């Protein structure tokens, strides 16, 4: 067993290393981090705009006015999140290499806007906001990568205007970005013109139909989701941060799906997707952290008798409510523990399947597209994620019960092991204490 573990660890560590330290994935992850506060701000106002029973308390007119007053909050943030992700990625790409990061951000944004259709029906001089959200997400990400790379390339080539001595450094810096930015944006303009000659007409359209649509369709399906969930668990089993590794690959897909739901939710239409960012974050992970260990902590309080596990329950409980579960993962321990491997892998898969069908059958509403911070306690997060629906919390309760039942037999075996060890250590202590006193008296 140990040998297999060691071999697996040797395989997984470099993968984790590669995925996590890959320049593009790092920039992608950190770029999303830049957008996150804005996304959460918008989500808060979607939640407030959709408070339950308001439509019954207020007159129809007042309710419409209330919603219309709050709408700009999410329209300016959540619905056009692609914009902030692009700036974030461009910024982080250049920052990684020690360049002037803010130019990376703006050059990425400008490149994206160059590729973006600037006409809506007959009106020119506009940018349709839908392409700044989910629809433009993939194009935005690729554009930010390429724009930042080109910018950096031209800076490194030293294609900059040299200023004579005595010119203030701020002035020469503003010129130093001029040539790299001009070259980069010109390339994107050429790309736009070339695409306008093809059947796709816009790059936006090309990326959307050829890459984004198939990928998100794949990502919204149950098989891909189960693979992602399983991989997260496998990484964690080896004590590696599964989410941070897997999310950097899946986040663009999950966020795009999320945004589609948000648009439908705000328009009062049927929600298209079950699998979204919030499906994973709220219903699979956000119940105590990866592996949904809140149920494990509850089980520890209910059934265990060993001191070690009781202590762990006290230590891991408060953090677990806010979905921080490293104490459980490293303390139980989950890592490298063959006994725990089965519930650790099986429970999230079962929960994912049950939640998927509960939502697709309409028993529980699909995630409404609001982003709930991952530290939000379970039940509340389920309520919020489904657009203020109590059934979201019920779903989380069901999931807790599922994890509880799957874990119970394994946890009992572990508890018995610990308990027996503790008893034998205690009696040994007593015996040795007894012999030592007898020798001193003799």
């Amino acid at each position, binding site marked *: 067993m140990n040998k297999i573990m060691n071999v697996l660890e040797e395989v997984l*560590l470099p993968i*984790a*290393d590669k995925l*996590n*330290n890959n320049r593009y994935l*790092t920039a992608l*992850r*950190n770029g999303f*981090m830049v957008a996150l506060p804005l996304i959460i701000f918008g989500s808060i106002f979607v939640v407030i705009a959709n408070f339950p029973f308001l439509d019954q308390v207020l007159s129809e007119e007042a309710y419409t006015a209330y919603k219309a007053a709050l709408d700009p909050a999410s329209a300016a943030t959540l619905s056009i999140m692609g914009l902030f992700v692009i700036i974030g990625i461009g910024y982080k790409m250049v920052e990684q290499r020690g360049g002037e990061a803010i130019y990376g951000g703006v050059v990425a944004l400008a490149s994206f806007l160059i590729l973006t259709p600037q006409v809506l029906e007959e009106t020119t001089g506009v940018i349709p906001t839908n392409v700044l959200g989910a629809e433009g997400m993939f194009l935005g990400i690729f554009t930010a990568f390429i724009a930042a790379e080109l910018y950096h390339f031209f800076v490194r080539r030293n294609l900059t205007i040299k200023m004579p001595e005595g010119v203030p450094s701020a002035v020469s810096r503003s010129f130093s970005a001029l040539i790299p930015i001009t070259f980069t944006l010109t390339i994107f303009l050429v790309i736009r013109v070339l695409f306008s000659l093809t059947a796709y007409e816009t790059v936006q359209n090309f990326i959307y139909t050829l890459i984004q649509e198939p990928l998100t369709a794949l990502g919204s399906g149950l098989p891909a989701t189960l693979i992602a969930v399983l991989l997260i668990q496998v990484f*964690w089993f080896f*004590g*590696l*941060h599964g*989410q*941070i590794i897997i999310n950097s690959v899946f986040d663009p897909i999950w966020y795009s799906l999320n945004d589609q739901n948000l648009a439908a939710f705000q328009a009062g239409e049927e929600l298209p997707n079950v699998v979204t960012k919030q499906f994973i974050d709220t219903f699979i992970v956000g119940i105590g952290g990866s592996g949904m260990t809140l149920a494990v902590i509850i089980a520890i309080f209910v059934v265990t008798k060993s001191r070690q596990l009781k202590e*762990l329950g006290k*230590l891991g409980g408060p*953090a677990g409510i*806010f979905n*921080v*579960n*490293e*104490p*459980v*993962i*490293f*303390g*139980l*321990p989950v*890592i490298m523990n063959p006994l725990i491997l089965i519930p650790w892998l099986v429970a999230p898969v079962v929960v994912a399947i049950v939640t998927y069908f509960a939502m697709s059958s309409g028993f529980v509403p699909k995630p409404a597209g609001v982003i709930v911070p991952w*530290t939000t306690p379970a039940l509340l997060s389920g309520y919020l994620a489904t657009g203020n629906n109590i059934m979201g919390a019920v779903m989380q309760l069901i999931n807790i019960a599922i994890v509880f039942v799957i874990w119970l037999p394994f946890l009992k075996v572990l508890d018995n092991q610990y308990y027996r060890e503790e008893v034998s250590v205690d009696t040994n202590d007593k015996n040795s204490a007894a012999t030592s006193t007898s020798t001193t008296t003799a």
Partner: protein
Amino acid sequence: MKRILLACSSGMSTSLLVTKMKEEAEKRGEEVEVWAVAQDKAEQQMAHADVLLVGPQMRFMKKKFTVKGDQLGVPVDVIDAVDYGRVDGTSVLEKALTLINEQQRALQEQGGEK
């Protein structure tokens, strides 16, 4: 004043340790500054630290951090998984202080040779 920097994915789980380590340091009368950051902030914060300890779930970052650490003369290591699970402030503080002392000794020896 010894400055100990902890890093994990978002600075959440290591912040549990921060409290415990501060308690332990106070007991010993040791003057320390302990703080936790997310991994993307770690490199930037290293310049202000004497040692960087990484959560075991982020141990794949060690190599990257070590490169920066060598430049700055900041030792980098991974927190032991068992200590991490127990949120064992005593043992992690011990490790941090040992690493700082080793680093200082190494510096002094270098200085002595010159």
